[in-house]
């Protein structure tokens, strides 16, 4: 039991060393030094980069600054995806630190959602939690909570307070004693190569005979190309929080222990490095 709780902490406190560099075409009054930061895997770019913004705005004129946005090797980074997901999906097999380019102009309207205030992040985060509970509990648990409980989930994330967050979140991880798991598992599978941003389907954690479905069962059902045939070479990696869980892992356990704070399992399918 202690081991399982450790997983919750390891997931919460995961960090990615990142180097932020100002885009070369931005107009500055002095040279802009890169800014180094340890990013929480479980948070969102626009929630944790106030210091980055301040650092670069110091060398820029007010009129040259509009909405900040981030890019990695030409790809605009979706702030509404958790940081750990973005890293796993785009940069997991490259050398650290993760090099992100910072922009203050030419916001890519066709690719990125706007994020003018923390309210936008909170609304997005809470919408994800509500959707996850619709899948797990037909929204019964989240709807029974008071507004202050919802606020506590957000404040816990915003202020990096594990205990504060989990005091409420543990209720979202419970299920009736007569069941052996959630109604459906909240998950999304991402592949950088597809136009479709992610795959999300209804998937039950328990089979009709009562057996626990595994990660492998989920992939076979929803994204069979991710698991290549036994005789062939495994061309892809299945990554969650920077690790490759065994395909035999029960999906119910993964949902309870390796979901992001939004209560979703965000799974990346990436090319296996060929070194």
């Amino acid at each position, binding site marked *: 039991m202690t081991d399982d709780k450790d997983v919750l902490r390891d997931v919460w406190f995961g960090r990615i060393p990142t180097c932020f560099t100002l885009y070369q075409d931005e107009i500055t009054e002095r040279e802009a030094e890169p800014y180094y930061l340890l990013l929480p895997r479980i948070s969102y770019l626009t929630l944790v980069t106030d210091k980055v913004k301040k650092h670069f705005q110091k060398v820029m004129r007010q009129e040259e600054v509009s909405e900040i946005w981030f890019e990695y090797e030409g790809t605009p980074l979706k702030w509404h995806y958790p940081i750990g997901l973005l890293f796993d999906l785009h940069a997991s097999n490259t050398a650290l630190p993760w090099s992100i380019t910072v922009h203050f102009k030419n916001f890519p309207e066709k690719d990125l*959602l706007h994020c003018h205030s923390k309210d936008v992040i909170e609304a997005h985060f809470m919408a994800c939690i509500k*959707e996850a509970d619709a*899948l797990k509990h*037909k929204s019964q648990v989240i709807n029974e909570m008071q507004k202050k409980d919802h606020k506590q989930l957000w404040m816990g994330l915003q202020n990096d307070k594990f205990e504060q967050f989990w005091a409420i979140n543990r209720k979202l991880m419970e299920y009736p004693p007569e069941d052996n798991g959630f109604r459906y598992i909240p998950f999304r599978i991402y592949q950088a190569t597809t136009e*479709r*941003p992610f795959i999300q389907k209804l998937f039950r954690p328990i089979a009709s005979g009562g057996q626990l479905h595994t990660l492998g069962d989920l992939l076979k059902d929803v994204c069979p190309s991710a698991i290549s045939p036994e005789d062939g070479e495994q061309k892809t990696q299945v990554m969650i929080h920077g690790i490759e869980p065994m395909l035999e892992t029960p999906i119910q356990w993964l949902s309870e222990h390796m979901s992001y704070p939004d209560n979703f399992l965000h799974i990346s399918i990436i090319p296996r490095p060929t070194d």
Partner: protein
Amino acid sequence: IPCSMAGEEDFFLEEKRFKQHCEEFVKHSQQIGDGWEWRTSKDLGDGYLSKTHFQVRNRHIPPDLKEKTDDNIEQTLLAHVEESLDDSQVAGVCTTEEVIRYEYHVLYSSSYQVPVLYFRACFLDGRPLTLEEIWRSVHACYQDRLQEGPWDTITQQEHPILGQPFFVLHPCRTNEFMSAVLTGPWKHKRHKNYIILWLSTVGPVVGLNLSLSYAKVAPEQNSSTVPA
């Protein structure tokens, strides 16, 4: 019954039924030529309804109002072309006619088991409308509900099939009002097309109206039930 019931109060639309009702919907749309079509995604075979239309808006900026504005808020009154001004007003008003291109998509949410309305809007020069402009353009009779909880009503989200930013009318309360429509004294309405019932209710909030002829659409298998 075309829709499945999960408990007395719950009214969920299964994905198969969603597709069937959309098919029916498109058939009628083709008959009356109002532009709806079904788009299938290449990879997974799911799909959505789609329609594009243009709206002309008149921007009246009376000079005295300009002085009253807050520094940060641009006062934009969106008025219909029919509105007339008397001579004294005409002299001071600058009118810009703007054409806005609206694109509406109806997708299925497996999480909430309801349809969801996605939309985006831009001026002809390509400039997209901001969330604030969209909130301002919500029909007057829905503004109270919007002010109560703007973040629960219309927000910007990623389109789950195209991956691009769209505005979305939140689905979590759809079940509430659809249950009210489809149970109780309106039980006979259950044979009707869910998409038509739903879209005729939520569409007007964001400027999307359906021709009254849709009210007459009934599923082909419904020969034994007599509509009231």
